[in-house]
C-alpha cells in the first residue's frame, strides 16, 4: 500500500490539479495559487544549486529580480509581446549568472555565499538607483498583462477573468520549466552534480571539472529563477527593487529548506506551505518574522530534511515495519 502511494507521480498530478483552481471562482485562491506556482519554480531552481550541487547561494534573488526587470522593461517600456519578453527574462538572468557565477565558483563555502550576496546587493543597488531604466526606488508599477484575449475562445476556461487566464498560462509555463529541470537533474549531468555535492575532491579525480560544472549549474539555476521573476513581475502588477534584495533570497532559501533540499519537489512544497502560512499568520498578527524564525528553528532542529524529508522518513519507517 505504502509502496503504491509512494510511486504515484505526485508532482505532475498536482500540476494538473492546479489547472482547476480558477474553477473555484475565488480571486483570492487564484492569487495565492499563482504566487505558489511561481515561487515554487524559484525555489526548485535554487535547489539545483543547494540540494543537487551543494552550493549555498545567498543571492539567488538577483536573477529573479533581473528576470522581472527584463520582462517588465520590455513589456512596459518597449511594448514587446509576452511571448518574447518571457524567454528574455531567462536570457537576461542567465547572462548575469554567467558573469557573476564565473567569479563565484572560484570560491568555496562561506566565501562563495558572501560573494553571491554581494552580487545580489549590487543588482539591488543598481535597480534602486538607476531611475531612468528601472524606475529607481519606485520601481515599475503597472506592468501590462500579456495579450490573453484569445483564451476567451477556449472551452471551459473561456469565461474566466484575466488574472485566471494569466494563472493558467503560468501553470503551463512553470510545468514546462519543471519538466526541463526534472530531465536535467535526472541526466548524467545531474548525477555528476551530486558527486560534486558529496565530495568535490573525489569528483575532480573522476575527471569532473568542478568549476565548470558548478558554473553551468549556476547559469541554469539563474535562467529558471529569471523566468520565475519574469512571471512574478506581471503577476505582481509591478516590478520593484526589493525583488533582488537579500530578504527575497533568504525567503526562497527558507522555502527550500522547509520543503526539503533532498528531493526535487521539496522546495515547491516548501513554497506552498510557507506562502499559505504567511497568508494565514499575517492576517492575525504583524509578527510574521517571529513565526518564520520559530518555524525555521523547528525545522533546523527537528526536521532537517524538511517536510518532504520527514514524510520520506516516515514512509521508510512504515515500510520497515511492514517488511
Amino acid at each position: 500500500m505504502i509502496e503504491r502511494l509512494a510511486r504515484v507521480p505526485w508532482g505532475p498530478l498536482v500540476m494538473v490539479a492546479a489547472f482547476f483552481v480558477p474553477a473555484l471562482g475565488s480571486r483570492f485562491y487564484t492569487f495565492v495559487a499563482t504566487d505558489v506556482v511561481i515561487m515554487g519554480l524559484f525555489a526548485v531552481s535554487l535547489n539545483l544549486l543547494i540540494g543537487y550541487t551543494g552550493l549555498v547561494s545567498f543571492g539567488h534573488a538577483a536573477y529573479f529580480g533581473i528576470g522581472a526587470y527584463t520582462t517588465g522593461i520590455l513589456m512596459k517600456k518597449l511594448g514587446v509581446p509576452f511571448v518574447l519578453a518571457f524567454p528574455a527574462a531567462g536570457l537576461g538572468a542567465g547572462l548575469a549568472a554567467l558573469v557573476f557565477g564565473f567569479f563565484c565558483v572560484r570560491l568555496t563555502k562561506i566565501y562563495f555565499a558572501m560573494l553571491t550576496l554581494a552580487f545580489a546587493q549590487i543588482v539591488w543597488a543598481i535597480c534602486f538607483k538607476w531611475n531612468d531604466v528601472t524606475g529607481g526606488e519606485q520601481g515599475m508599477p503597472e506592468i501590462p498583462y500579456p495579450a490573453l484575449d484569445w483564451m476567451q475562445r477556449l472551452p471551459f476556461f473561456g469565461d474566466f477573468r484575466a488574472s485566471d487566464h494569466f494563472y493558467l498560462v503560468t501553470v503551463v509555463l512553470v510545468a514546462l520549466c519543471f519538466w526541463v529541470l526534472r530531465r536535467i537533474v535526472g541526466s548524467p549531468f545531474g548525477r555528476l552534480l551530486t558527486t560534486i555535492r558529496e565530495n568535490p575532491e573525489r569528483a575532480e579525480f573522476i575527471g569532473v571539472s568542478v568549476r565548470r560544472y558548478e558554473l553551468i549549474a549556476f547559469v541554469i539555476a539563474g535562467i529558471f529563477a529569471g523566468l520565475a521573476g519574469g512571471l512574478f513581475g506581471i503577476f505582481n502588477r509591478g516590478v520593484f527593487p526589493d525583488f533582488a534584495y537579500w530578504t527575497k533570497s533568504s525567503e526562497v532559501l527558507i522555502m527550500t529548506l522547509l520543503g526539503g533540499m533532498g528531493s526535487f519537489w521539496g522546495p515547491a512544497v516548501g513554497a506552498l506551505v510557507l506562502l499559505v502560512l504567511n497568508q494565514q499568520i499575517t492576517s492575525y498578527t504583524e509578527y510574521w518574522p517571529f513565526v518564520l524564525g520559530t518555524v525555521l528553528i523547528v525545522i533546523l532542529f527537528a526536521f532537517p530534511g524538511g517536510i518532504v524529508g520527514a514524510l520520506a522518513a516516515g514512509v521508510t519507517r512504515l515500510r520497515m515495519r511492514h517488511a
Partner: protein
Amino acid sequence: MLEVRNVRKAFDGFQAVGGVTLGVARGQIAAIIGPNGAGKTTFFNLVTGHLRPDAGVVILNGRDITGLAPHDVCRLGMGRSFQRTNIFPRLTVFENVQAAFISHRGRGLSFFARVEGLYRDETYAVLESVGLQDKAGEVSGFLSHGNQKQLELGIALASEPELLLLDEPTAGMSATETRETIRLIERITRDRGLTMLFTEHDMEVVFSIAQRISVLHQGRLIAEGAPAEVRSDPEVRRVYLGERAR
C-alpha cells in the same frame, strides 16, 4: 610510464618533499614506503595535480603533466584512491562507480538523457571485479570500512586508468582484510595490465607484491630498488629501527 624528476614542495618553510626522483615502468607494481610524515601523500598529491610542485617535473607517458589540474590528469589515464576513504557517501554503490564512467566516457555534459541504466554493464563488471556486485543498491556511506575501500578501488578502476595510484590501500584494515585487499589488487592489476604505484605502511603488504620499492624519509628518497635490496639497505634499517613490522 611515469617519470618524476626532482620534485619539491615546501609548506611555510617546511620542506615536505625535497627533490624526489623516481620512475615506474609500464606494467610494474611499485611501492613508496616511509615512516609517518615522510611525505608520501604529499608526493602523491604532487603527481596527481592536487598540489603544484615548487620545482621539478612529472611526466606521464612522455607528456609533461606538471601542475595540471586533477581532472585533467585523470583524463590522461591516471587513477587514484585516497588515504581517507573518499567516496560519494549518499550515492549508492552502483551510482558511485557509474558516475566515474559517465565522466570518463565523456557523457558528463548530457542534459536530457536519462541516467538510470547508463553504463550498467560496465559498472557491474567493475563491481564484480572488486567483489561488491551484491551491494550495488546500498547507500555507500553505510558500508563497512573495508567495503568502502573496495568501492574506492572500483571508482578508480572505472576511470579506466593505465596507471593506478593507491594511497595506503590497506589503512585501518584487519589482517584478513589486508590479505584479501592485496589479493584483489594483484589480480586486478594483472587482469587489466595496469601499472601501479602505491604507498604503504604495512611492510608485509609491500614486500609481498611490490616489484620495486622507493623509500622516503623526511621528504627525501633514501633508497630504491628491488625488495631484497631495499630490505637489506642499512640506511633503511636505521630509519625503521624501533618500528615494528606487522
